[in-house]
Structure formats: structure tokens, C-alpha cells
């Protein structure tokens, strides 16, 4: 193996490296440093290499049978090259030196750069000592500690059996689980050299109940990073009780009458309102595209004074927790809004360069086929000064959104999200279940209408799709009151 010494460009074809195939360790330093040097010698302003190995498995139980066990193995790399304001991202499955060099060469040529002349000296890129987050918290040992295929199957079948006991009018029962183990290595021409191992798991139920023309389908998921024992400790008794109760109530629910109402949103996945209505609009990606109304509002009031919100990567085992982002930066705890005042944006490396906002360890991507972009991690509205009783007592006629579905936000700041389980509030009391509600609004307007926050903050796992693919995130909030919002229904 060659050490990383200065050499001529024409020596490139003769270089031989023997990096460990099964693990991203120090043996990758020399070849990656060489490639970064080659890129710099070709005239690139900055080069980043992202290497990934993935071991994924999913398991599906339908009624009382395991119907699918799907393992998936993946390796790949992404090479990002910057020249001036332009950047190019090339991905490949080929992790050999030749494969990575070919990807680099392609990236350089796209930006009008060529490999250096044969007699050119390749500059030495001194990478930092490997910052190995994978050695923390026993991460190296996580994968073998996770549930075996047999154990996955047994737990899911126990779960669907419980569901059968708890719910009525069942048409179908499903339990799904996945385990996603990921090892990443980042090397960049500024000397960044960092490795991490992530373990993400999620398990949940879906149930379809039918009684004549009445149908109710409800799903619920739990999610976790960092706990190899997650599936073993999943409380499927409680989960099955909750979902059975929800399905039972929604089976005979009336459709919501459309209109404008005050609403109370439950904690936990209710936090999707902030994720869609504000979180995305605080990503520097949105400033770059000029699709956020908040671009020039840092230091200004953009929300009700009762609202404080965070985005951070460090909550214990939460679904969006990362020790480092996909650009090798340690995750930060970022105060987004404090008492209504916009404090910070979420920035990746490129977003920081292009907008001037400091990096926050928020450069994230689905996998090696995507360039990192500024994305949310664990995002939540902080606790307030009210009790849940205060919130309900303040509503004469409104809607309690107990269980939220997904949502989205568009280029103009208009957002929407669906409600899976809702109840009519009359004179501060819940009176009847409602279904079919969709909430729509504009980010700039709604943020000033979140007027009351309770104290029962809870986080919930979610999947967020955006420019750099689908990533694991957390949403969260205590119970909150929104003074008025348009509710789409019948």
C-alpha cells in the first residue's frame, strides 16, 4: 500500500491500494487523499467523497403469517466537485480506486476540468485523523445484536395476534418492521475525514376495519436510532390497544364539515404542522431557490410570541438523531425560533456558502445517489405555559386533531396535511369523532396563529422526502392551539 506522498500525475495508473472491503477504516485514507489531491490539481475548488455501506432488512406480517422478509445490501459512493458557483455530483457502485477515480474524472470533465498533465505534481491533501463516531456507544457491535429473522417474525406475529384480540370488525391486520444499518465515510479536500455507523429501526401496525359501508384504516409506527434491542422492547400490547381504540372510533365517524375552525393539535405527530408550515422553509435550500417567505427575516418576529422551536440531531435515540451529518460535521442543537423571533436557519455546506448562514450539521441525504442538502433532524415546538385543559377550555366550537397523517409544502409557502383521527370540540368538550379532514394554510399566516402551547412535549418518527431523498426525521410538540385554519372536508 502506498502512503500518501507527493507524486506525479503519470504515476496514477500504477497506484495500488488495498482498502478493507468490509469496513471503512484508516486504510481508506491514502486512496481518498490521493483522489482529493487529483481533483484539486485538476482545478476543482472543493471535492467531497461520500462512501456508504448499507445492510437493510424488512419484515411483513399479514394477519397470522409472515409474508415477506426482504434483505437488501448496498454499497456506493458519491463524488461532489465544486468549481466556482457550479457543482457536480457523480455516484457509482464501484468502490475500487479505479471506480472512484472514474467517477471523479467524470465529475471534473462535466465542470470542464481535466486530470492534470502527466508531469504535474499531485498536491498532498492532509486529512484529519479519522474522526470515528462509529467507535462511540458500541456502534461497531450493533448489527449482530439486532433481532434475528426468526425473532422479527415471532414478535410481529405476537403483535398481529394482539391486534386480533383488541380490535373489532377487522378486515386485515399488518405489522411491519425494518432495520436499516448504515456505515458512512466522508473525506473532503478541506481535510474532513470522518466515519459513522447509524442504526435506524421502525415497527408499526396498520389495521383495516369494515362494517357494511363504514371503513376505517389506521396506522401507527414507533421508531428508534441507536438501540439494537428496540424491537425486543417494543410494547405491542399498548400499541395494539391504541390502534384498536382509534379504529373503533373512526369506523363510524362522520365526515368533517368543511370550514374555518380553531383547532387543537395533539402532541407527538401533531408536530408535522411545524415541519411542513415552517421547518422546510428554514432550510437554506429554500433560500437558494427563493421559495421561503422567511429568507430575510432572521432576527424578526415570524411567529406568535408563545412559540419556541428547535431542530437538533442529538436527542437520545430519536428517529432523526445523528452524531454527524452526511458532510462529516457533528450535529448541532439549533434554536430556530425563540418566542416568535427567527433565530437560525438550517444549513449544509453548500447552503452556507451560497446564503451566508452558518453550517448547523444538517447536511443530509437518503443515500450515496444524492448530494447532501440542508434537512431537518429532530424538529419540535418547545413546551409552553398552558395546560391541556386551558387549551380545550378556550374553544367553543372547533376540532381536536388527535392523529395526523402526512403533509406537504409548496414553492409558494402553502402547506397542507391530513388528519387521521379527529373529534369535534363543543364548549371545550369532545363530542363526536370526525374523519376526512385536510388542513391547509399559508406558512406566514399560520405561524402567528399558534397561540397556546401546552407542556406535554412528545416526539414522533417520520419520513421526510425532499431534494436529497427520503430521510428519517422526528417531529414533535406539546398540545397546541391554532386560532383558525381552513379545514377541507365534505
Amino acid at each position, binding site marked *: 500500500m502506498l502512503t500518501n506522498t507527493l507524486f506525479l500525475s503519470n504515476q496514477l495508473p500504477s497506484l495500488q491500494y488495498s482498502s478493507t472491503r468490509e469496513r471503512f477504516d484508516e486504510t481508506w485514507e491514502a486512496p481518498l487523499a490521493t483522489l482529493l489531491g487529483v481533483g484539486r490539481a485538476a482545478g476543482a475548488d472543493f471535492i467531497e467523497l461520500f462512501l456508504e455501506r448499507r445492510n437493510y432488512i424488512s419484515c411483513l406480517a*399479514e394477519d397470522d*403469517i*409472515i*409474508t*415477506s*422478509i*426482504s*434483505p*437488501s*445490501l*448496498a*454499497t456506493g459512493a458519491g463524488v461532489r466537485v465544486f468549481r466556482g*458557483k*457550479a*457543482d*457536480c*455530483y*457523480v*455516484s*457509482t*457502485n464501484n468502490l475500487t480506486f479505479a471506480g472512484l477515480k472514474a467517477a471523479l474524472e467524470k*465529475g471534473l470533465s*462535466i465542470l*470542464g476540468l481535466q486530470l492534470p498533465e502527466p508531469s504535474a505534481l499531485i498536491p498532498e491533501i492532509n486529512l484529519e485523523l479519522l474522526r470515528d463516531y462509529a467507535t462511540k456507544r458500541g456502534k461497531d457491535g450493533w448489527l449482530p445484536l439486532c433481532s434475528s*429473522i426468526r425473532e422479527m*417474525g415471532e414478535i410481529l406475529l405476537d403483535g398481529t395476534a394482539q391486534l386480533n384480540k383488541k380490535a373489532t370488525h377487522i*378486515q*386485515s391486520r399488518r405489522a411491519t418492521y425494518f432495520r436499516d444499518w448504515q456505515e458512512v465515510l466522508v473525506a473532503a479536500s478541506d481535510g474532513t475525514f470522518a466515519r459513522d455507523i447509524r442504526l435506524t429501526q421502525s415497527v408499526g401496525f396498520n389495521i*383495516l376495519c369494515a362494517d357494511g359501508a363504514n*371503513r*376505517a*384504516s389506521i396506522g401507527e409506527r414507533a421508531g428508534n436510532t441507536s438501540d439494537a434491542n428496540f424491537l425486543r422492547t417494543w410494547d405491542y400490547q399498548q400499541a395494539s390497544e391504541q390502534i384498536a381504540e382509534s379504529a373503533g372510533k373512526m369506523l363510524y365517524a362522520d365526515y368533517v364539515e*368543511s*370550514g*374555518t375552525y380553531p383547532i387543537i393539535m395533539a402532541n407527538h405527530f401533531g408536530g408535522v404542522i411545524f415541519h411542513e408550515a415552517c421547518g422546510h422553509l428554514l432550510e437554506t435550500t429554500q433560500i*437558494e*431557490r*427563493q*421559495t421561503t417567505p422567511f429568507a430575510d427575516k432572521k432576527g424578526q418576529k415570524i411567529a406568535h410570541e408563545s412559540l419556541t422551536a428547535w431542530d437538533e440531531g442529538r436527542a437520545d435515540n430519536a428517529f432523526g438523531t445523528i452524531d454527524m451529518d452526511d458532510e462529516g460535521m457533528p450535529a448541532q442543537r439549533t434554536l430556530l425560533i425563540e418566542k416568535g423571533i427567527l433565530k437560525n436557519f438550517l444549513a449544509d455546506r453548500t447552503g452556507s456558502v451560497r446564503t451566508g448562514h452558518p453550517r448547523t450539521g444538517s447536511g443530509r441525504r437518503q443515500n450515496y*445517489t444524492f*448530494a447532501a442538502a440542508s434537512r431537518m433532524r429532530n424538529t419540535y415546538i418547545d413546551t409552553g405555559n398552558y395546560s391541556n385543559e386551558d387549551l380545550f377550555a378556550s374553544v367553543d366550537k372547533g376540532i381536536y386533531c388527535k392523529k395526523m397523517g*402526512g*403533509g*406537504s409544502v*409548496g*414553492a*409558494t*409557502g402553502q402547506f*397542507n396535511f*391530513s388528519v387521521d383521527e379527529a373529534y369535534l370540540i363543543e364548549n371545550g368538550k369532545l363530542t363526536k369523532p370526525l374523519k*376526512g*379532514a*385536510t388542513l*391547509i394554510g*399559508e406558512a406566514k399566516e399560520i405561524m402567528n396563529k399558534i397561540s397556546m402551547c401546552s407542556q406535554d412535549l412528545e416526539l414522533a418518527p417520520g419520513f421526510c422526502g425532499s431534494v436529497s431523498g427520503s430521510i428519517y426525521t422526528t417531529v414533535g410538540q406539546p398540545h397546541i392551539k391554532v386560532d383558525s385554519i*381552513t*379545514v*377541507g*372536508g*365534505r
Partner: protein
Amino acid sequence: MKIIRCTEINHPYNLRLSAFIFGRKSQINSIMSKIQEIATYAQQNAAKLGIQKFDIYGSTVDDTSVQVDQGEPKQVKASNRSGVTVRVWNEENTMGVTSTTDVDPKGLELALQTAYEASFFGVKENVPDFSAEATIPIDKTTKNKAPQAPVSELIERLLVAEKELLAAHPAIKGVPYNGLAQRDIDRFYLNSEGALRTESHSLASVYLYSKTEEEGKKPRSAGAYRIKENLADLDIAGCVKETADKTISHLNYEKIKTGKYPVVFSAEAFLSLLGAFSNLFNAQSILDNQSLSKADDIGKEIASALLSVYDDALHPANIGAESFDGEGTPTRQVKLIEKGVLTSFLHSAGTAKRLNAQPTGNASIGAKVSVGPNFYHVFAAGTPDSLHGIPMQELSLETAENVILIDDLQALHAGVKALQGSFSLPFDGWLVNKGEKISIESATVAGDFLEVLKSIVYVEKEAELTPGGVCPRVWVSELSITGE
């Protein structure tokens, strides 16, 4: 600017083009040999592991895409990726699966081994099997690839498109989402009983999404998309025009009063709704009790007699049509709804066997084989006055009063309850009154999909090509609209 089409390219470029095509033939040969190589590795490793029965579905994708921002290139992406899914049957005839991106001998060995281990946890009843049609000859498989244009040309064309869009109206201030891409795809299926299918094709696509800013008004936006086999034939000018026209049409907007309105779905909107409720035709979903249909619903009238829906992978308008599915079964035209009557389901080899039908070429390989549509063809079932002898007036947006024209439905992942049959979705659209269109500021549409099918009052004649299929505008008697 005039877009240069293939036939207008001058002589020197043609020479270069010929050389490039020659290069592509060599590349296709090399891909064939790569597939043979994978087959050989698989055979060798299977023998080593004592595996008698297996099949592999795989693909390689080589793509390049560009984005621009205010006259400058923003990001260029390129990738060359491979992936295979391996299914293995053990001595007890239960099946396991593994997917991998490592297609070298070591990677394939690990995939086969992992699939073999998983096979002991596979289902014991209705075990998936090879498709009996995996070896029957297919008349025509695509082996042609278009020459890939240099990245500089992609950037140049997209910059021109952005410039034209920004010049279309002073209120259009940006094109925040845009992209021009070209892609080569090679796919194959092989199994241990000698099936071997390969196919190659190219795609070029463009999308533009522009946004307006005007003093005292809310920002408005709209977009369009085009796809073709090659860049030379890609209708970028049409995409620019459609995006500009739509965006400009949303500049003057009004709130709409909440209530019930006649609704006209654009081709894209109707197909997106049809896609969201595709469990209606999905034999696997029916067997899993995850469908709005039941196995014995064939022959049932589920829609207005005005409507016919086919799934037609081989439709001439289907860009990038595939001639075989993930199990190697040839794709074909499947008549799903004929004059309002449910006539067939979409099948894999396994569902066809269980429901005593033929596989339809709609399967995706996996531990649990899934089924999905290929390319919808929606059309009017005869002329309006020919149906059941009932005379029916042709409807037109030029004469209709207070009709909602829905151009684009949003957030289907959230607002569709596919197993309940209901939807409540935000949309972009217009209130149309005798041909005059006023953009709707912000609203949702809600209803039941089966009721929508039944309440179709008119299917227009002129069809529009979208990425998901071919479809005309579809008129529905009444739906709930929430505005103010």
C-alpha cells in the same frame, strides 16, 4: 429561441452522431456480456451453495441531469448504478430474496447466501414460482439507445428554457424547480430454468416549475413536464409554453366559496387519482383484503358507462415501454374497465394462479411479489349519444357555468385513504364560467373515488399524454370543494 431538432442538425454533427451510435452498439454488446457474466457467476455460486432453483431481475442505469438557477448552472448529477434482486428456493420449496448493488462474484455470492438463509422463513402456502410465461418468445424488445448529449448541451438548453420562461411575463421571477435529464436503462431477467430476457432503452425528460411575485399579491406557481426517448425530440419549447401559460393563468386569483360544484379533472389529475386508488385493479391487494374490489367483482358495473380504462404497457405513446415485467412475463394490454364494467385485474404469476387467470405482466419481483399498473389508457367508451341509446350533450368549458377545472392534485400521499375509498386533497385549478377562467387561491376537493367513477358525466375526446398514461379530461357531476 428555436429548438434544434434532430433532422435539422448539420453535417459535421451528423458524422459525430454516427460515431456515437456505433459506440452505443459496442456498449450494448458489453452490457449483454455483463449480463451473461452475472448469469455465470450466479450459476457457479448457486452450485457452490447447493442452490438448485433461483431467478434474478436486475438493471443498470446511467443518467445525467442538470439544474439551473437565474442564468447559471446550479447542479449537475451523473450516476452509473447497478442492482439485482435474487430469489432462491430451498429444498423445502420455500423462497427467500435479497437485493444487492454488489454485482461482482463476491457480492452475488453473499446475496445468494442471504436469500437462501431467508428462504427458510418464506411463506409455505402460495409460494411464488417462476412465471410460466418467462420463456415464451416476445415479438419485440427494445434494444435501442439514443446518443447521450454532452452535459454542456443539457445546461445550454435548460438555460435557454429558463430564460424564455422568465421572459414570458414580468411577474415570473424564478424557476425554483427545474431539471433536464437523460437516462440509459438496461434491464434483464434470468432464471435457473434457462429464461433470459434483456432490454435497453433511453429516456430524456424536462420539468419546469415557475413562481411569480407581484406587489400586493401572493406568490403563484405552476409547472409542466415532458418526456421522450431522446433529447433531440424532447419538446422543451412545449414545456416552457405550458408552464408559462399555466403560471400566468394563476396570476389573477380569487377565493372560492365552499360548496358542491361540477368538477372537470385534467388528464394528470384524473390519472393521479386513478393511480392512488389502483388497489381497485390489483389482484394481490384483493387477495390481501387491501382493495376496494373483491375477487368476484369482475363483471360488476363500477363506473359510468362513458368510461373505459386499459393498462397498456405497449401503448405507442408510452415512452420507455417495457416488454417484460419483474418475473419475465411479457407485458400486454389489459382491459380493466370497459364501458363502466370491471373486466379484469392486474396479475403476477402467483395471483393469476390463485384467481384462475393469466399473468398480465404487471409484477415486481420481491419476497412478496407486488403488482402495479404500467401505463393507463383512459378513453370515452363510444360517443355520448351511442350509449344505451340515451342522447347526451357534449360538454364544453366554453359553455359550462361555474365548473371547477382541477389541473393538479397535491399531497396524495396524505389525503388519499386508499382502503376507505375517500380523498380530501388540495388542488391547483380554476373556476370556469363560459370559457372564462379564474384561478382558485387555495382550496381542497373531497369525495369517494367509487362515487367519482359513477358520477362521470362526460369524457372528452381529445386525450393528453402524461407520464402515467393517456387520458382526456373527465367531467364529474358534483364534488365538495372547500375554499372560504
